[in-house]
């Protein structure tokens, strides 16, 4: 083992723990990293679907003042109100989802009652259930009787029109701009800045404070399944079919409104991003360094040939900062080994490696890598339940020279790639100019993509886990 690499690596304190392993076995180190990278274990990269509110919370509502209908989508105020604090409040059963650009829900006021005191808004988990949303801190509400917007202070701000019987009113959160927004009968009433303090999970909330006030509570969001909702409504015992029809119409309308709004937000952001200027030929240079890094030599020479004949020809000047000496190291040998491994000619690859890089083969990591590939393969087939193939696999595992056996074809392509990438990284690490071990494993392109993902995740966590994460796969499939 060449000691100079270890010294280089350990000059960086942050890495010393990870690089300790190199003293023992360079190949095992890379293999471990490669396994990590290819493992199917979900990380924060994989987005779990969040559960969105589906109905009203029947347990945590201000009992006595309101009745939630069995469909859990309608509320009725029951008591003759005597005191200011006899407000009937009900939250949704789940907080609004946050890993999206927007959340939106709406209510239809069937009967505003004598005084018409209705409010729609968002409250946090510990909200006092006898107060209107917006009266207390960490809450926000648009009130029907005066059209004012309340944001945790005693008095409201002028905001929009009043609303009453027959109106459909919606409340939403725009996570991109960190704003609340409210709608009335399909028209945006206004937006209001969401204070930083309102970071926790927010529950869609309705408050009623009058006799004969009754609500139907609808959910309209991107993942809304209309059929399921219709079923819930039909099950209710007091919503007549006429209202059902109106609901349908409005769900449809608001769904469209919501999608358009979200599309506009995306477009706005997209336009800001597209305006950013890049250094000339940067994409070209990164693709080129990627090909160099992984030893795709044939692609590289076609690429170079073509770029000379383009109009105008592509030059990546030295001042652009591309330093290709290191990643071009042993290009041809890396290409040959990759080809052999991809074709399943493992023994030929080992013998070439023994000639060129005895230090790598000595540490026995390559055999480990091959063994790993085989074990992974065996797992794969055991799961799939191919009896014949399992036997073949067993033969393969026992076989000293897999490419000579009749089951050599089984070394699956993706596993071969893993082995080939590991060998590639190991050879790169034998370059005396190698600065750090990560660089042997990650191309410039990969480092940039990691940085992008990490920045998006960090920004989301700074925003209280709100907003979209970046997923390369999503971009590729769009």
């Amino acid at each position, binding site marked *: 083992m060449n000691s100079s690499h270890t010294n280089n690596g350990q000059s960086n304190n942050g890495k010393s723990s990870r690089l300790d392993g190199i003293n023992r076995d360079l190949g095992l180190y890379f293999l471990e990293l490669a396994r990590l990278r290819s493992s199917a274990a979900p990380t924060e990269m994989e987005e779990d679907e969040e559960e969105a509110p589906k109905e009203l919370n029947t347990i945590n509502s201000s009992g006595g003042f309101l009745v939630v209908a069995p469909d859990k989508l309608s509320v009725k105020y029951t008591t003759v109100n005597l005191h200011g604090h006899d407000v009937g409040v009900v939250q949704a059963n789940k907080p609004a989802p946050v890993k999206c650009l927007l959340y939106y829900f709406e209510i239809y006021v069937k009967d505003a009652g004598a005084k018409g005191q209705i409010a729609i808004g968002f409250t946090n988990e510990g909200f006092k259930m006898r107060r209107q949303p917006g009266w207390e801190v960490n809450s926000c509400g648009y009130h029907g009787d005066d059209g004012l917007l309340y944001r945790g202070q005693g008095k409201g701000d002028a905001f929009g029109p009043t609303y009453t019987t027959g109106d459909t009113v919606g409340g939403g959160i725009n996570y991109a701009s960190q704003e609340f927004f409210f709608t009335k009968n399909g028209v945006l009433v206004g937006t209001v800045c969401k204070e930083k303090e309102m970071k926790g999970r927010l529950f869609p909330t309705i408050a009623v404070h009058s006799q004969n006030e009754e609500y139907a509570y609808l959910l309209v969001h991107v993942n809304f399944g209309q059929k399921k909702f219709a079923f819930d409504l039909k099950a209710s015992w007091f919503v007549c079919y006429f209202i059902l029809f109106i609901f349908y119409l409005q769900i449809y309308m608001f769904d469209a409104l919501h999608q358009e709004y979200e599309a506009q937000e995306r477009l706005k952001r997209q336009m800001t991003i597209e305006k950013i200027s890049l250094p000339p030929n940067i994409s070209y240079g990164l693709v080129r360094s990627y090909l160099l890094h992984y030893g795709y030599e044939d692609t590289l020479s076609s690429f170079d040939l073509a770029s000379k004949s383009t*109009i105008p020809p592509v030059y990546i000047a030295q001042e652009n900062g591309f330093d290709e000496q290191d990643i071009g190291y042993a290009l041809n040998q890396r290409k040959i080994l990759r080809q052999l491994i991809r074709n399943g000619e493992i023994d030929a690859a080992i013998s070439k490696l023994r000639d060129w890089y005895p230090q790598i083969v000595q540490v026995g990591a390559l055999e480990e890598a091959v063994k790993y590939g085989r074990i992974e393969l065996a797992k794969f087939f055991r799961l799939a339940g191919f009896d014949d193939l399992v036997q073949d696999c067993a033969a393969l595992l026992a076989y000293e020279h897999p490419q000579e056996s009749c089951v050599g074809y089984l070394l699956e392509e993706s596993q071969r790639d893993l082995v080939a990438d590991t060998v590639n990284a190991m050879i790169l690490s034998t370059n005396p100019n190698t600065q750090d071990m990560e660089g042997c494993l990650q191309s410039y392109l990969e480092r940039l993509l990691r940085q992008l993902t990490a920045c998006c995740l*960090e920004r989301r966590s700074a925003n209280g886990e709100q907003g979209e994460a970046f997923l390369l796969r999503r971009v590729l499939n769009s």
Partner: protein
Amino acid sequence: MQILGADFLASLGYNVDIEATSKKVITREEWEKRLNDVKIRKEDMNKLVMNFLVTEGYVEAAEKFRMESGTEPDIDLATISDRMAVKKAVQCGNVEDAIEKVNDLNPEILDTNPQLFFHLQQQRLIELIRNGKIEEALEFAQEELAPRGEENQTFLEELERTVSLLAFEDVSNCPLGELLDISQRLKTASEVNAAILTSQSHEKDPKLPSLLKMLIWAQNQLDEKAAYPRINNLSNATLEDPTV
């Protein structure tokens, strides 16, 4: 405390760093740990590279990359050669040839895209003027371009601008010289290229540059919230220590 007066404290000679009190600092070590936790699949990077090769028209390289990496292109590689032939024809000034090739490829492209067709015809006129074929140029402008100018005000203005080239003795030094510049050809060529890609239901731009822009944007956005190791030089992807 900030309200109480950073200015007041500063006036007393205290070094008040408001940024430092509100911004989170992420050390290099922490950040590297996060970078390592990110999972980027090799096959996804291969796809990204293939998308670049295909969209930019590196057909041989795309073919080789398919063999060397096992990545399947998202478009029939044969169509790239045709597209590049059109692009090249415009870049070399053989506009007539290019129009013919586009129509061979798919006649709908020019039928449904009058602006593109006009720009190609305009380029053809420019080439005639460049080659000093004045009579031919005038005839072409009258017969082919003038009727289109009548339909559309923008086309008419463009046509007038182009024909004005004829008034100058030395076109290369006239104020409209930019029309004769190579960049005008490249502009027209990339317009045709984009139209062909769109007709093949493929995006007209590769994804990689957008991702790089997104990286710059994401870093700028995060700057408002935290001090962390940035990558300022995209071409060598080096992490810079956070400035605190």
